[in-house]
C-alpha cells in the first residue's frame, strides 16, 4: 500500500515537473488536453460501459460485498451475543451477497453512524448502504444517491403512559415531549403540532436511549421517534402494558437501501434483489419450500428461480440462479420481516402497510420479466 501511494506520488510529481518545464503556451495546452482526455477516458469507462457494472466487478474481484449498516438500530442491524451481525438490513445484504456469490456469508458489514453514512458510501468505503435510511428528495438528488426501493415503510409515532389517559396524538396539547435533537423527527414534530394548532414543550435528548430514560423518569409525558423503535423499546419496559404507542403516524419515513449515483447496473442488481424477495413472498416461495417449484406453471417463478429456459439475469451480470440463492439465504421478504421485526424477534411489529399488496399493504414489486 505504501509503495502504491509513493509511486503514484512520484508519477504525479514527474508529470507536474514535465508540465512546467515545457516551453510555450501551446505545448502546455496540448499536454493539458492529453491529460484531461486520459482522465475522461478512465472516468468514462465507468459511465458508458452498458450492461456491465464496475462496482459488481470490484465486488467480485474483492470476493465479498461491503455493506454499510447501522452501528445499532433495534431490529435493523446489531450484533448478537455471539458477535454475529443480525437484523433486517443485514439480511437484505446477505441476500444480495448470495445473489452475487451464492454465499450469504460473503459480505462484510461496516457499522456506520448516521453522521458518516453518506460520505462513507460516496467515498467508496461501502458498496451499498442498507442503514434504515429515509428516502427523501434531497438525499436522492443533492447527495447524489440512488435509492433502490423501500424495504420498510416507517413513520414517526408517540409513546405515552396509559395512565395519562390519552388515546390519540390530537389529545397531546400542552404535553412535554422528549425529542432527539438534530433529526428529521424534530422538524416533523414542530410541523405536526403547528398544523393542528397545539402547543408542546420539547425536552431535548441525544438518542433513543436517553429519550427512553427521560420518559421513564417522568421528565416528559410522551416521547417520539420512528414507530419501529417505539415498539422495540416498549416490549422491553418493566411493564409493557402500562405503555401505549399511539395509533397515529405523523410522518412518512420510507426506509430503503441506496447506492452511489453513476453505476446504474449496480443499482439494478440491488433493486431487483429487493424486488425478488418481495415477489417471493407474493408467490409464496419460502426458504423451506423453494426447491419444490420446479413443476409450477407460473413462468415468472421460473424466471425468478432460474429454473426455466431463459436466463434473464445475465443482463445484469448475475448467475442464472442468483435470485434462488438470494431467497434461500434468509427467506422471502415476509420471513426476513418476521425474524427481525415481527413476532419471532420479540419486537412484535405488525406488518401493517408493510404487508404485500395482495394482503392489504402497499408493498408492490414490478413484475420480474
Amino acid at each position, binding site marked *: 500500500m505504501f509503495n502504491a501511494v509513493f509511486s503514484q506520488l512520484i508519477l504525479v510529481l514527474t508529470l507536474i515537473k514535465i508540465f512546467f518545464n515545457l516551453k510555450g503556451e501551446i505545448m502546455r495546452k496540448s499536454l493539458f488536453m492529453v491529460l484531461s482526455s486520459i482522465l475522461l477516458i478512465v472516468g468514462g469507462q465507468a459511465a458508458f460501459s452498458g450492461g456491465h457494472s464496475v462496482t459488481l466487478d470490484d465486488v467480485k474481484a474483492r470476493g465479498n460485498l461491503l455493506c454499510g449498516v*447501522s452501528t445499532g438500530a433495534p431490529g435493523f442491524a446489531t*450484533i448478537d*451475543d455471539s458477535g454475529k451481525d443480525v437484523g433486517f438490513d443485514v439480511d437484505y445484504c446477505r441476500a444480495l451477497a448470495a445473489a452475487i456469490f451464492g454465499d450469504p456469508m460473503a459480505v462484510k458489514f461496516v457499522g456506520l453512524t448516521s453522521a458518516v453514512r453518506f460520505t462513507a458510501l460516496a467515498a467508496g468505503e461501502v458498496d451499498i448502504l442498507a442503514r434504515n435510511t429515509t428516502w427523501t428528495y434531497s438525499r436522492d438528488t443533492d447527495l447524489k444517491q440512488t435509492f433502490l426501493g423501500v424495504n420498510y415503510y416507517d413513520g414517526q409515532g408517540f409513546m405515552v403512559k396509559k395512565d395519562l389517559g390519552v388515546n390519540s396524538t390530537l389529545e397531546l396539547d400542552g404535553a412535554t415531549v422528549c425529542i432527539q435533537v438534530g433529526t428529521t423527527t424534530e422538524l416533523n414534530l414542530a410541523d405536526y403540532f403547528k398544523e393542528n394548532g397545539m402547543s408542546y414543550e420539547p425536552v431535548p435528548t441525544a438518542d433513543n436511549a436517553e429519550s427512553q430514560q427521560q420518559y421513564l423518569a417522568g421528565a416528559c409525558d410522551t416521547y417520539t421517534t420512528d414507530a419501529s423503535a417505539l415498539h422495540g423499546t416498549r*416490549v*422491553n419496559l*418493566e411493564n409493557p402494558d402500562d405503555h401505549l404507542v399511539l395509533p397515529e403516524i405523523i410522518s412518512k419515513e420510507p426506509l430503503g437501501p441506496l447506492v452511489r449515483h453513476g453505476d446504474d447496473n449496480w443499482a439494478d442488481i440491488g433493486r431487483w434483489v429487493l424486488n425478488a424477495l418481495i415477489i417471493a413472498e407474493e408467490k409464496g416461495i419460502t426458504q423451506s419450500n423453494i426447491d419444490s417449484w420446479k413443476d409450477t406453471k407460473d413462468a415468472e417463478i421460473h424466471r425468478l428461480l432460474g429454473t426455466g429456459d431463459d436466463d434473464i439475469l445475465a443482463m445484469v451480470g448475475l448467475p442464472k440462479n442468483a435470485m434462488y440463492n438470494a431467497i434461500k439465504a434468509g427467506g422471502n421478504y415476509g420471513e426476513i420481516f418476521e425474524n427481525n421485526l415481527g413476532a419471532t424477534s420479540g419486537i412484535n411489529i405488525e406488518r401493517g402497510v408493510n404487508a404485500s399488496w395482495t394482503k392489504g399493504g402497499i408493498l408492490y414489486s414490478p413484475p420480474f420479466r
Partner: protein
Amino acid sequence: MSKLAFVQKNKIPPSPAPISEVGVIGWLKQNLFSSWFNTLLTLLSIYFLFIILKDFIPWAWGGHWDTKSLRECLDLNPDVACFSVLTARWKQLLFGLYPAEEYWRPTVTFILLIFSIIPILFPKFFRFFWFSIIYPGLAIWLLWGGSIWSVGIVYIGFFLGVLLFILLLRNITKNMVIAGISSILFVILFFIFFSNYLVKILDIIIPISLPPVESLKMGGFTLSLIVGITGIVASFPIGILLALGRQSNLPIIKMICVGFIEFIRGVPLITLLFVASVLLNYFLPPGTNFDIVLRVIIMVTLFSAAYMAEVIRGGLAGLPLGQHEASASLGLTYWQSQRLVIMPQALKISIPGIVNTFIGLFKDTTLVSIISLRDPVGLASTIRADQTWNGIYWELYVAIGLMFFVVCFGMSQYSQYLERKLKTDK
C-alpha cells in the same frame, strides 16, 4: 516559702494525649469536625452519600448475573441491576469483534505491554530497554496477524540503515550529515525496491504467520487501549520536538511548529477524526485501503502532540535562563544541553501536565464511536440495539466507566510516584 522550693530532677514522661485528640476520634475531630462550617459540610456530604448509596447498593448488590435477556431480569425483579448483559457481552466489551479463538493475542499483547513499559517507567530495569524497542512491532504483528516478516522488515530496514550509518562514519567519511543522508536514502530505496521481495523470500525460508485480523474487527476496550497507548507513546516525543521547535531561533522551524500547534489546538478532535474517517478517502487514490485504525491513531497522536508541546513549553519556560547559559558556557552542544540539563528539569516540572494530557487523550478515544469504530461506548449502543438487551442503560455505562477509571487512576498514581521520586528540592 522558699523551703518548699522543688526542682524536678528527672524528666516527666509525656502523658498520653487526651482521647479526643488521637485515634479515630482525633482524626475525625481534626479532619471532619474542626469547625462548625466543616461539621456542616461533613454532615451534608454524609447525607448525599447516603441518598446515593441507599439506592445504588441494593441495586448493584442484588443484581442478576445469569438471565438470558432483559425481559427475564425485569420479570424476576425489576428494581435491581441486570448485569446479565455483562455476562453475555463482556468478551465483546473487552475485545470487540475479534475472533473468539484468537482472544489470546490481544491478551498477550497487553501483558507484554506491561513488560515493555517497565524498563521505561522504572530506571533499575533499564537494561531490558531492548524489549521496549521490539515491542511495537511485536504488538502490531500479534494484533493484526499476517506474516511476521511484513512487520519484521521494518526493523530489518532500519537496522541496516543504522548499520550503514555507523560503517560510513567509521571507515569512509567523518561527516555526520553525508553519512546520515546516504543511510536515509538507503533506507528509503530499501523499502521501495527490495522490501517486498525480501518479505517473500523470508516467508518461504522461515514461514511464521498468524491468521490476519482486519481493523473492522477491532473494538471494545482493546481498541481504546490500542489507540490510547499508541497515541500516548507517539505524541510524547513529537510533543518535545514541537516544544523545542517553537522556541527555536530558526524562523522556518519555528513557524512550522507554531503553525502546527495553533492549527491543531484550534480544531476540535472530532473534526480531525471526521477528516480521518471520511475526508481522507476522497484524496487517496481509489482502491488504496488506508487502515481506519491507523488513520485514527495518526490523528489522535497529532492532536495530543500539540497539547503536549504546550505543556512541555510551560516546563521549559519555568526554567531560569541561567540554566541555558550555564550549559552553553560548559561547551555543551544544543542537543547535549537539551538532553543533559534542560529536558530533565523541564519534564520534571511538567509531569502533572503531561499526565493530564495522557489521561485526557485516553478518555478522548471514546470519541471514535462517532465515526463508527466499535469502542466500548459505541458497542454499548450496538448492544442496546439487540432486542434481548434493548433498554439496558446504567449497567453498561457503569462497567465501561469502571474500566476507564482503573486505567486513568493507574496513570495518575504513577505520576504521583514519579513526582515523589524526582523531588530533589526541599
